[in-house]
């Protein structure tokens, strides 16, 4: 920039105004083009990143659908793995199934729900309604966040340790799996419920308290009732998260071929563990004289079909959760 030169004749008139060389500030053609090029390049890269991420998703869903559909039929859904010998056909004309695994998954997840929903919900109530943002509440919030990052296998080891210390070595039952899963589920329930309780308008609380209603009744009859749809949707998403957990159940609930209806005694198979066990079998044994009805690759086919079932369950749960949340969000806008 050129500064005005003060000379003896400077009388402040416009003739001595600073002369600015505007051309200096003009972006040169080359720098403009470079910036444009960079802009275009980043745009392309960002879109590329998005496409790259789509490939595995489509591949996972597509292969599971195609390979899973191969053995996905009523016989597969309505039988367990008893009387399944190698790759040979069973008496019912099928190749074994996942009935026991579906029952196990439902029972163990139900157990986890029974433990974690009350605890998680009440913890959220504490954080929002009672704590007043004290030091304890801050610590709990931090620890809930940290707890949501616990590796699932550590949760499994914890449940295993508790049950073997209390019940003696070799204890394995469905409930043990429920405890492990609830450890993973509680933080999710706490966080989503907390968010939902926070958005309940304070006017409602104050109106209720001003009418002389006790705090407990205000919470159960006003606050919780108002936020119910949001909490339900959060809980469903939490269930969808734990229903696919494998590692903790591998350590706790075990694996058997027959149907076990009792959550509190005996090993229980779940769908994810079933997928893993079939995957690790790799090939089934077929004697040479078995003929065409004996399928050596049947374990992998069963694994894919069970995976398909698992994906279907998880997606349906997600869909329900989202629909419930959507109905709720319409209500708040009114």
């Amino acid at each position: 920039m050129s500064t005005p030169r003060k000379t003896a004749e400077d009388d402040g008139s416009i003739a001595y105004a600073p002369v600015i060389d505007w051309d200096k500030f003009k972006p040169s053609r080359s720098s403009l083009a470079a910036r444009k090029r960079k802009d275009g390049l980043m745009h392309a890269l960002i879109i590329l990143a998005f496409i790259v991420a789509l490939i595995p998703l489509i591949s996972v869903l597509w292969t599971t659908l195609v390979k899973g559909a191969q053995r996905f039929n009523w016989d597969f859904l309505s039988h367990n793995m008893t009387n399944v010998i190698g790759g040979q056909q069973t008496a019912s004309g099928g190749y074994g199934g996942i009935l026991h695994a579906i029952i196990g998954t439902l029972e163990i997840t139900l157990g986890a729900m029974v433990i974690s929903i009350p605890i998680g919900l009440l913890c959220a109530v504490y954080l929002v309604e009672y704590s007043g943002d004290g030091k304890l509440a801050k610590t709990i919030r931090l620890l809930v966040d940290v707890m949501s990052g616990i590796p699932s296998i550590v949760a499994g080891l914890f449940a295993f340790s508790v049950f073997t210390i209390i019940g003696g070595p070799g204890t394995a039952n469905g409930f043990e799996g429920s405890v492990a899963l609830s450890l993973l589920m509680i933080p999710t329930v706490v966080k989503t419920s907390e968010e939902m309780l926070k958005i309940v308008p304070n006017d409602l609380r104050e109106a209720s308290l001003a009418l002389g209603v006790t705090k407990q009744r205000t919470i159960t009859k006003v606050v919780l009732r108002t936020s119910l749809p949001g909490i339900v949707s959060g809980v469903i998403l939490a269930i969808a998260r734990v229903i696919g957990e494998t590692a903790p159940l591998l350590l706790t609930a075990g694996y058997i071929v027959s149907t076990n209806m009792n959550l509190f005694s005996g090993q229980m198979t779940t769908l994810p563990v079933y997928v893993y066990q079939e995957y690790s079998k790799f090939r089934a044994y077929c004697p040479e004289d078995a003929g065409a009805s004996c399928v050596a690759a049947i374990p992998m086919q069963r694994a894919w079909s069970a995976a398909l079932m698992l994906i279907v369950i998880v997606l349906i749960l997600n869909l329900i959760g989202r629909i419930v949340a959507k109905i709720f969000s319409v209500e708040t806008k009114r």
Partner: protein
Amino acid sequence: MSSLTKPVSGKRFDTVFRGIVYACGILILVVLAAVTVFLFVRAWPAIGGNHEDVADTIGKFTGGKITSFWGYVGPLLFGTVLVAAIALVVAFFVSMGIALFISHYAPKKLATVLNYIVDLLAAIPSVIYGLWGGLVLVPAIYPFWNWVAQYLGWIPIFAGPAANPARTVASVSVVLAIMILPIITSISRDIFQQTPRLLQEAALGLGATKWEMIKLAVIPFGKSGVISASMLGLGRALGETMAVLMILSPGLTYSVQLLKASQNQTIAANIAAQYPEANGLGVSVLIATGLVLFVLTFLVNLLARKITQKASVK
């Protein structure tokens, strides 16, 4: 008169309810403490017990190559961190791209669909990623690794020949990257969307291109959020079991040759793999390694949350 001044009912239950709610709040602290204590109690025989028995048990796990506990945990810890770190590096750039695409490039309708897709990726169970990785990705990705080994083999980590089947750290990292992608993407996207409009418009008004605007306004604003999202993703990758268990061919070395099989193993996958055949003391050894993993992920998550808290205070 007294019936008017006294609450009609519910006072006592109010107190009880208050007690229950407080108990549930404190229960979180108790549970986390219990996790540590129970793991420690079960792991104690491996840490402070008879050294000869422990050496014997670990010798059985490793085929006699390693006999001390720390000598056993070391390579496992190294493998865990290596796999997770590579997964994070791969996932980081892709998820930044997706997050920016959703928050700043995509039309609104497409962005909503993309949000669903990201959530969908997060919802797929890890065992299915493992199945897909083991049966679809491993055969499909071998030619690529082979190409990498041929042309980039002069870089030590890509030293060939590439293992076939590609049950290697490189393949596992790719699968883990896909698995932690949604968590990093969704948190960064939320942060990017919160960038003040004024800052963005000021940047654009001064003549910045879209990318310059993102570089000048969006990324500085979202930096701490992105870092904490990455830490959370790292925590997830450190603890992932099934995908590693189903894909990786395990080994216990400090090697960084990503394209070779049987080099590394992670703590989580090692526990799941050895657990069925372990005896009492063997289980203690495995739980002790689990405790190490717990402490590691705890610290990573704690750090991530601290960063977020600091950022939100500003």
